[in-house]
């Protein structure tokens, strides 16, 4: 049976293409179901408050996702402010102090943190912050998310610094520059795209997370800018409204999915990919 392998190849083609097909189906569904809702409500979707349950209003409600969009940005912003300094410095430690025990331990910790289920952060921060503060808040949600983003930024930063050829660093050192000057000034142009790309990946990852925010960020159907207030986020809204029997709320879940995937996450990933592509050694 010399031709049997063709059968195997055909099977691989069929399985691979159907896997790709179903994955594209997911992406297509978000586009097909979400975009019409976004177009239907137009700009109001980005400025209006979230509508209350149907039986609570008479006449035409204002329909919008503004609180969830603002909430997502706030939570992500807080998480970014915490995770960038820690993640970046941890990355430097892992890449530049290699062969030291402390760097090995740091790498172990970072790669373990990446694999911890994300709901863990939600439960821990709930006990640590929400209980003492008597209230979920954007701050608690942001801190929970930062726990998820820190290891990503650390690992990407370390990868980027590792890729810089030793000769380049030695060139700087040979001029009598300090090692820190070499790391943060001389090779800045080489590492910056990689680090930024890692940060963007971490932001994209954080923006989509719902599990850590379910019990820490709370819920709010009005826009607030106070980090100690409860906020709703797009990801939590998709979950909460997804189970609803109300047509309007399910529509909003699709619109939120569309905004989350096509307006926030995919552009972040695309920019991040382009940045590293441009800068390969």
């Amino acid at each position: 049976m010399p031709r049997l392998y063709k059968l195997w190849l055909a099977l691989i083609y069929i399985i691979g293409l159907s896997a790709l097909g179903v994955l594209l189906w997911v992406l297509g569904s978000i586009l097909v179901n979400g975009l019409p809702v976004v177009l239907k409500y137009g700009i109001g979707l980005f400025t209006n408050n979230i509508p209350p349950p149907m039986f609570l209003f008479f006449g035409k409600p204002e329909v919008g996702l503004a609180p969830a969009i603002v909430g997502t940005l706030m939570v992500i912003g807080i998480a970014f402010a915490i995770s960038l300094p820690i993640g970046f410095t941890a990355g430097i430690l892992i890449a530049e102090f290699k062969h030291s025990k402390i760097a090995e331990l740091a790498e172990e910790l970072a790669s373990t943190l990446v694999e911890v289920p994300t709901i863990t952060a939600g439960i821990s921060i709930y006990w640590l912050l929400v209980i003492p503060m008597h209230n979920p808040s954007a701050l608690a949600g942001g801190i929970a998310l930062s726990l998820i983003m820190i290891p990503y930024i650390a690992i990407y930063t370390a990868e980027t610094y590792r890729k810089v050829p030793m000769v380049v660093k030695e060139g700087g050192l040979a001029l009598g520059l300090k090692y820190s000057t070499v790391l943060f000034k001389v090779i800045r142009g080489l590492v910056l795209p990689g680090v930024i790309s890692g940060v963007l990946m971490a932001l994209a990852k954080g923006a989509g997370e719902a599990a850590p925010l379910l019990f820490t960020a709370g819920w709010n159907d009005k826009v607030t800018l106070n980090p100690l207030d409860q906020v709703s986020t797009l990801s939590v809204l998709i979950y909460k409204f997804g189970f609803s029997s109300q047509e309007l709320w399910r529509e909003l879940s699709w619109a939120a999915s569309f905004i989350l995937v096509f307006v926030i996450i995919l552009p972040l990933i695309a920019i991040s990919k382009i940045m590293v592509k441009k800068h390969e050694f």
Partner: protein
Amino acid sequence: MLRERKLRIIALFGFAGLIVAVLILVVPLIINSYDFLLKYGKELISSMNWNPPQNVYGGLQFILGTLWVTFWSTLIAMPLSISLALLATELSPKRLKTLIAGLTDLIAAIPSVVYGYWGLVVFAPLLATTVYPYLLNLSKLPIIGILFSTSVISPQCVLTAVLVLSLMITPYATAIIRNGYEMVPKDLVEAVYALGGTKWDVIKMNLSYIKSTIIAGVIIAAGRAMGETMAVTMLIGNNVGPFKPCLLCRGSTITSVVANEFEEALLNPYHAKALTALILILIIMGSLLLAFGRRLGKKLVEAEIIA
């Protein structure tokens, strides 16, 4: 050169940050489940009777449910990701390769909750009307029949969660396998062709050459499946009854019961602590899986970076 003070302070800051992050993640879980585990710990991992209002906390069905869902979704994701990785390396013209690789990377970024919502509204109703009635007929078969025996077909069931979960983890595993595949030395490939081998022989050689990378990819994917929360909670049907080795039944996992019940659990301190203890058990299960993977090879750490 690394004696430089400024650099040491920076490194120390990063290290302290990581340690604090780990402590914040783990210590509240231990503190808040410690007294529960002393009192109900044995019951939690040995009984399948879950009735928090009566303070009965048998959680074995959630642990088994997590393992069951992880096993099946990994099993299904394996052929999917190997085929997809081959499509993106060996089996397509060059331009298509980058397109397929780029697409799978983009798709890997779709959030779990969006997969869950898609599964709930689009995929589950479709499966329940087309595929599941046929699977129900299989329940008369000996041995494997038990997988499909259920009284009513529910769109939200273990199989729906498993299928969506396997789709979600496929891009991760694909990225790792693809990366390993491209690292195979070109002279080996040339050697196979020189011996008169076909493309299929090359594929077979390559796949056996990167066996350890494939295993690493599968273990990482299994770990992701194990901790996955939102999609599973939305699709598994959330039945907290005793575990059954069944695919068409409604079921539950550790993550799904926590996501579902934690909010109401706050009325009863022991209920909330029971769920916290379950999360602790989930972390231990995940760590065991990764430790097992690490023993298989150094490839795992590299794979984590790629995923």
